């Protein structure tokens, strides 16, 4: 017995902690989660309370004198052809409709998932047949299959559920099959099997958690579809029979009298729409809750409270828009003066101010309606004003908030209007409104503080690249082909701005092969893209100048740039399969740029293409040109890429990891091709690679990059002998050489490359450098000449020179 209090304590704590569980945090990480929670609560409350609160009498009692009335205080949405309250009937139909939809969806999900998973584990041929069968079944419209099935099982609510459950299962089976067969081949499933884990554990800890997200989203969407389908059948008269009614059946009645009382059809139709949205949001939010990537991410980003995040998100627009839609859809039918802002505003304001006289003559639901109108009008006016004049998105959020609170208070007062006293209704409505006002003030304060923070760190102030570097003499003695000064690439991200390429200078002489080497994340590929003006959004390239053949490409118009770079520069990328368009013939891809830039066509163009194919040693070029990329082997594709680059006889080829995706024997062949082209056609090559061996083999000079900067620029001949940057040294040492002692441990570089959004002050390599001293941690070393052909950015190597100069 003594354990009992402790037990409840634990329970209480875990109950409290639920709101702080990673699942729930991730669930609420997007406003749609909040919305889902709210809407689901409303829906469940309605489904549970409606049969208890509303009496059968209210629902079925005919009152022919008051038939087909518009909205009034007694009947908020008006009455149907037998004088019954439309809103009450719609609410009353909620539990039955949900029950039918959920059972149909549940059936479809159980049958579908079981069949799909079973198909995935069938042996080869049977599986193919199963998949084929699924595809055939999928091709037929689900609702039509359901109608046929209703014919078989009989027209009744149960029949409709059964028919839809069966008709919808193929699409779910297909999803389950795809997921199950996709997951089975994954590495972590293989490793779980190798680890000897039991099948049960693999299924419950490895497979299900990893497909749960998709299954949940799909299941909830299927439930929404089942709701629509059940309603459709009922609408057609093939579902719910007798005196029972669901939303679909209510719509049937309504459509007949659409001209007289539109709300008769619109109210249940809207109920279906809202429920469908709720299911969609709920599925998404649940799936988010199950994603561990969001558990930690939200914890990290959530230095602000979730409420603040909620309001700052753009998705609030959606919430606002939806609620506004709901509110305004009902407005016109309430009374003719509903759209008169003067009257509504004045009356509403009076009630809110606590004018009990007005309240005394009005009923609870009238008060509520007035409040709704008032709130909606204020929201609309403020929202539009702020959106168009201030262009600030948070005001849209505010708009949604007010609408939501008004709708909520309205709903509450409606529920209380008949049973409880008018005072309670009024009080609750006022409470809702003032809460809204309070939240609005908070919001405005936050917006203002955010704005002031923003002006301090405007995104435009990209620091100008340092002037000192611009005046440096070019490295190479030969005619410079390419000169880039102060090349910088900057990305503005939510978490701050980063510079993958930071103020670098590059000189390429005519006919050189220059390598760029560095670890992943060092900015070498981004440098290539920056030179080619192909940096992806939202990256911004800035530079003092980038001169190719003496012409500054940073100052060219888009048209000039296209023509100039189109003929002077070519690029080769890492993966030749994905870099070639799979739907176009090699010939087309090879020739299209020449056709555009040089206006060559016909035989001359074909002859050129054949020559280039010969340059890269592709035999049977005639037939090859007519083939598609999938008919080429990996090495052949990369050759074709190179041939494509050569078509316009460019002066510069930028090759971004051209051999990384290839086997070593093919890598050697491609390197030979590049070298040949360089020697025979004098084309300059900028070769980006993570492989020091490749660089040494083919390049005459190498640029070593670390954390977005060039730390060394050295001739290959000096690379193995001269004093180098410590990073270069470490990089070379880490490669297992062919003549190294196998008993010695490999040299490695301790630590990890720095995150670009958190660079250390001073030299970026300092935290990993074995020779680090005080100055390294405070100043960023400049890239300086240690001799004519050798530049290093390291105090260890340059300090002596600086002293000598001083």
């Amino acid at each position, binding site marked *: 017995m003594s354990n009992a209090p402790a037990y409840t304590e634990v329970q209480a704590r875990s109950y409290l902690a639920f709101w702080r569980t990673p699942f729930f945090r991730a669930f609420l990480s997007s406003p749609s989660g909040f919305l889902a929670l709210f809407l689901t609560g409303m829906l469940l409350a309605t489904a549970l309370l409606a049969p208890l609160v509303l009496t059968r009498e209210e629902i079925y009692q005919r009152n022919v004198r008051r038939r087909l009335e518009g909205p009034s205080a007694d009947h908020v949405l008006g009455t149907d052809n037998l004088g019954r309250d439309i809103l009450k009937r719609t609410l009353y139909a909620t539990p039955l409709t949900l029950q039918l939809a959920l059972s149909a969806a549940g059936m479809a999900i159980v049958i579908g998932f079981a069949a799909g998973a079973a198909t995935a584990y069938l042996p080869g041929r049977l599986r193919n047949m199963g998949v084929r069968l699924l595809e055939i079944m999928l091709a037929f419209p689900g609702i039509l299959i359901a109608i046929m099935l209703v014919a078989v099982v009989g027209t009744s609510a149960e029949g409709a559920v059964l028919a839809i459950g069966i008709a919808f299962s193929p699409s779910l089976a297909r999803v389950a099959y795809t997921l199950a067969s996709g997951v089975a081949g*994954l*590495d*972590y499933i*293989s*490793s*779980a099997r*190798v*680890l*000897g*884990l039991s099948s049960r*554990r693999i299924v419950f*800890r*490895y497979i299900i*958690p*990893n497909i749960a997200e998709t299954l949940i989203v799909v299941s909830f969407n299927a439930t929404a579809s089942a709701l629509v389908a059940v309603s459709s059948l009922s609408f057609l008269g093939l579902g719910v029979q007798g005196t029972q009614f669901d939303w679909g059946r209510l719509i049937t009645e309504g459509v007949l009298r659409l001209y007289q009382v539109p709300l008769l059809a619109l109210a249940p139709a809207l109920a279906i729409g809202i429920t469908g949205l709720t299911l969609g949001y709920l599925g998404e939010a649940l799936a988010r809750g199950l994603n*561990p*990537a969001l*558990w*930690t991410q939200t914890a990290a980003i959530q230095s602000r409270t979730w409420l603040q995040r909620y309001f700052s998100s753009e998705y609030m627009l959606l919430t606002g828009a939806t609620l506004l839609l709901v509110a305004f859809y009902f407005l016109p039918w309430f009374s003719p003066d509903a759209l008169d802002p003067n009257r509504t505003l004045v009356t509403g304001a009076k009630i809110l101010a606590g004018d009990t006289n007005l309240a005394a003559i009005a009923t609870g639901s009238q008060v509520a309606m007035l409040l709704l109108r008032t709130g909606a009008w204020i929201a609309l006016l403020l929202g539009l004003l702020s959106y168009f004049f201030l262009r600030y998105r948070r005001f849209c959020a505010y708009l949604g908030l007010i609408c939501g609170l008004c709708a909520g208070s309205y709903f509450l007062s409606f529920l209380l209007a008949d049973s409880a006293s008018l005072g309670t209704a009024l009080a609750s409505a006022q409470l809702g409104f003032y809460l809204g006002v309070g939240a609005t003030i908070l919001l405005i304060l936050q917006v203002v503080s955010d704005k002031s923070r923003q002006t301090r760190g405007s995104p435009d102030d990209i620091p100008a690249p340092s002037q000192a570097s611009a005046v440096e003499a070019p490295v190479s003695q030969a005619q410079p082909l390419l000169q880039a000064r102060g090349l910088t690439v900057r990305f503005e991200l939510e978490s701050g701005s980063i510079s993958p390429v930071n103020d670098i200078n590059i000189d390429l002489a005519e006919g050189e092969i220059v390598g760029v080497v560095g*670890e*992943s994340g060092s900015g070498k590929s981004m440098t290539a893209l920056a030179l080619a003006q192909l940096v992806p959004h939202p990256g911004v390239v800035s530079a003092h100048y980038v001169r190719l053949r003496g012409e500054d490409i940073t100052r060219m118009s888009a048209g000039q740039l296209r023509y100039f770079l189109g003929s002077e520069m070519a690029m080769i990328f890492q993966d030749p399969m994905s870099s070639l368009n799979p739907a176009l013939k090699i010939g087309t891809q090879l020739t299209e740029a020449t056709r555009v830039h040089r206006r060559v066509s016909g035989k001359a163009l074909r002859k050129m293409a054949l020559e280039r194919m010969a340059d890269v040693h592709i035999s049977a070029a005639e037939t090859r040109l007519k083939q598609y990329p999938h008919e080429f*082997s990996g*090495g*052949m594709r990369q050759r074709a890429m190179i041939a494509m680059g050569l078509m316009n006889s460019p002066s510069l080829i930028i090759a971004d990891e051209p051999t990384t995706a290839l*086997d*070593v*024997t*093919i*890598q*050697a062949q491609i*390197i*030979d091709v590049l*070298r040949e082209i360089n020697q025979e056609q004098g084309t300059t090559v900028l070769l980006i690679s*993570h*492989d*020091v*061996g*490749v660089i*040494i*083999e*083919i390049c005459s000079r190498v640029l070593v990059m670390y954390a977005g900067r060039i730390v060394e620029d050295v001739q*290959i001949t000096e*690379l*193995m002998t001269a004093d180098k940057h410590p990073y270069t040294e*470490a*990089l*070379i040492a*880490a*490669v*297992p*050489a*062919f003549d*190294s002692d*196998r008993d010695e*441990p*490999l*040299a*490695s*570089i301790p630590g*990890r490359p720095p995150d670009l959004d958190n660079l250390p002050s001073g030299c970026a390599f300092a935290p990993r450098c074995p020779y680090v001293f005080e100055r390294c941690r405070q100043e960023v070393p400049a890239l300086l000449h240690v001799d004519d052909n050798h530049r290093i950015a390291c105090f260890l190597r340059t300090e002596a020179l600086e002293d000598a100069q001083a």
Partner: protein
Amino acid sequence: MNKLEARDLVVRYGQLTAVDGVSFGIPAGGTLGLVGESGSGKSTIARAIVQLAKTARGQILLDGKDITYAHGADLREIRSRIQMIFQDPYSSLNPRLSVGAMIDEVLQRHRDLTAAQRRQEVSRLLEMVALEPMFAGRYPHQFSGGQRQRIAIARTLASQPELVILDEVVSALDVSVQAEILNLLRDLQREFQLSYLFISHDLSVVRYMSDSVSVMYLGQIVEWKETEELFKQPQHPYTQGLIDSIPKMIVGGDPQRIPLRGEIPDPHYPPPACRFHTRCPFGPLAYSERSACRERDPHLQIDKSRHYAACHFPLVKKELL
């Protein structure tokens, strides 16, 4: 005695014979390197040993005991003794399990420990691979590639294996991280007397890790030798070609190297007789009198129990040719 031995192993995927009559042995406490281009069947061998792929023919022996078709309790025991680490550290860890949980479940399965002991063991294993014990609560996506590979290693060690299959474990990593992982693997091998089957396409890494090396081509082992010997004096032209293809840190490239022609043929339709004759720089393409390569399978003429090169005209000395 060999820790693991494969005899005349054949593995098929439908019509494709991915591994075609392969034999090798992994010495206890030693490392066998398995090297070859993509599509040579080296990963399939790994998968066959751990029964992720079905062996069509042949035998796999662990400590002399046939485990080719082991199942039930036998298989479970073997699972704890033979472990495998995969190439891609991003996809081989279950994203839904915390690091601690994924090591813990292996301990639960294979070791008889109390919960408290297991918690201690998780910390110890993480420390062993140079990770902080407090990382146990984190999820895979919070780690870098090298760290993930360390986690995979820690998880593997949890079952106290005798043989670990390393399938391209460093191919996805940067060179500096690669060095760290290789050093770690060698330290662990010494400490726990582990046997390794080290699979890689990178000859220089294989050389560093292995005691002996098997070179694969189109589902067959074409040469099998002590590491030093293989690199000094390769006998099979394909081995020579592979070695030549590797950048040697020689400025301007190795002038003596003899490049291989073409690419690996479609494994669905391997060339008859010697499978390498379509690319061999010393075969019938270069020397018309060497028609034997087109007619007879060199594999049939060798004794598979010792080190060999499957070639009718093995290279004697480079200078002679």
